[in-house]
């Protein structure tokens, strides 16, 4: 059973972390839309819920900015599929995003420490 609280992550947080997540996944290997979403699902243990369609405008934006490259490939079934690869500029952007996120998460961690002492935290919400 799930707890009463919604285990999903707030929309704003999902949106903010979308770009680094997608870039990081593509940094691992080239991929296509559906597989990227599966991977995000895996990485977040299902807690980061995307509206599936929204990934595609994001991928287009990354393409326009030159962070990823898209190419169509025939897939065994005969249907065409669009694959995305990260570019050098994309890696650069990823590094920069990572630096920023580390600062944010570091700051949060420091803030939690004082928070923790006054509030008991329910043990990590394991599914």
């Amino acid at each position, binding site marked *: 059973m799930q707890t009463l609280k919604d285990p999903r992550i707030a929309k704003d947080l999902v949106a903010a972390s979308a770009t680094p997540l997608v870039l990081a996944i593509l940094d691992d290997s080239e991929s296509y839309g559906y597989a990227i979403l599966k991977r995000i699902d895996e990485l977040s243990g299902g807690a980061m819920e995307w*509206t599936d369609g929204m990934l595609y405008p994001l991928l287009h934006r990354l393409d*326009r900015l030159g962070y990823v490259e898209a190419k169509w490939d025939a897939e065994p079934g005969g249907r065409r599929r669009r694959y995305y690869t990260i570019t050098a500029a994309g890696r650069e952007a990823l590094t920069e995003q990572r630096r920023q996120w580390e600062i944010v998460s570091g700051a949060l961690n420091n803030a939690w420490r004082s928070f923790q002492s006054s509030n008991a935290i329910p043990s990590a919400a394991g599914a």
Partner: protein
Amino acid sequence: MEATFEPGIETQIREWRTYLLRRKTIQPTDVDELEDHLRSEMNELGAVGLSGDESFLVAIKRMGGLNELSREFARERSSRLWKQLVLAGGSARERSRELYAELLVTTLIALAAALAFKAPAAFGYNPFRDSSGGGSVVDAATSFYLRNASLIALPFLVGYLAWQRRLPLKRLAMLALPFVVAAVLVNTFPFDRGGDTELLVAIHVPIVLWLVAGVTYLGGEWRAGTSRMEFIRFTGEWFIYYALIAFGGGVLCALTLGVFEAIGIDAQVFISSWVLPCGAVGAVVVVAWLVEAKQSVIENMAPVLTGVFTPLFALMLVSAIVGMAVTGNFIQADRDVLILFDVLLVLVVGLVLYSISARDAAATPTLLDAVQLVLVASALLIDLFALTSMLSRISDFGFTPNRAAGLGLNLVLLVNLGWTAWLEFAFIRGKRPFANLERWQTAYVPVYAAWAVAVVVIFPPAFGFS
């Protein structure tokens, strides 16, 4: 992975595709990609035991709302955002009522602009009568209109755009400020009538005010590069439409003259003092409305026009260079040379801007990009020749207002094109994304504004209003 589902489901997928395609912001390739996603999802759902119908419904649901999706695509390709805004919501009837109201307001504003433009004639400023003086000397009325034409016409455009964008009054007051300042300067400077500085101001005031109209067009959000691109696109389309309408208007006037002459009525005065000036000013607003309302028509025209003229101009410039090399004749620095080359550079910058604004930024380099690079590079080369010969002339004869303005403009454009050529080169070699070129052009717009302001504000006193 199997590729097909039961026939009934396939029909549903097809219907879903057509439905998506009707959204103008989602392009066929996007739909292909989304369909691939939908099918992958359905396969997976089918594998855990859902029926075809069920998995279709779940997959569609997970895909998210179409409105949201198409808005997101539109935001990404913000050039097409307006369509969604226009088409989203409201019944056909409501929309037609809105369109009707818009048409009415546009017409009223255009009429007001035309009347305001003729208002000074009531106080004796009427240069449109033609044929009265006949001399080449600029009389007081012509001089007044030279300096003030854009100051009378463009506030109505700004007003129209502000109405369309529902701009708050406070912002509108800010936008009115440049108009007031320009009006004061232009009418208090003691110009020599018909002098160079007066003419230069007459040319540059409209540029400054047009950029102010641009800020209005963007609803005050002029800082973002993407939105500036919107305004550049608007400018280009406005220009095409205006040229088309001016051409049509010219034909109409000529025919009117002919027909009335045939029945023994002289329509000359009516046309030259009413139809032409009122039409020209009213069209400024009407064309702005047309560009907004009929954008999709021009969107198809812009790439075609650049596609036709970029190679032609490139060919012309390359043959000019070949001609210089073969004959050994270099550019002779006479009076008009600098103006000619300024016009050339303005044209090349215009072509570059137009093709950038009409281009899908995500596309890969094409042959047209290479041709454009040839165009820009040869324009640069020729302009360098013109500049060197012009500089020697200036060092011999000193600066006049015209020479200074010509030289300044030339340098402003030269810097732009130089860096454009470099970015284009890098783009073709795959070193930089196209977006860099776009960003450079949008970032450069304030330079034009600054230069035009300098010509209007600094030049007249600096050259003694001659």
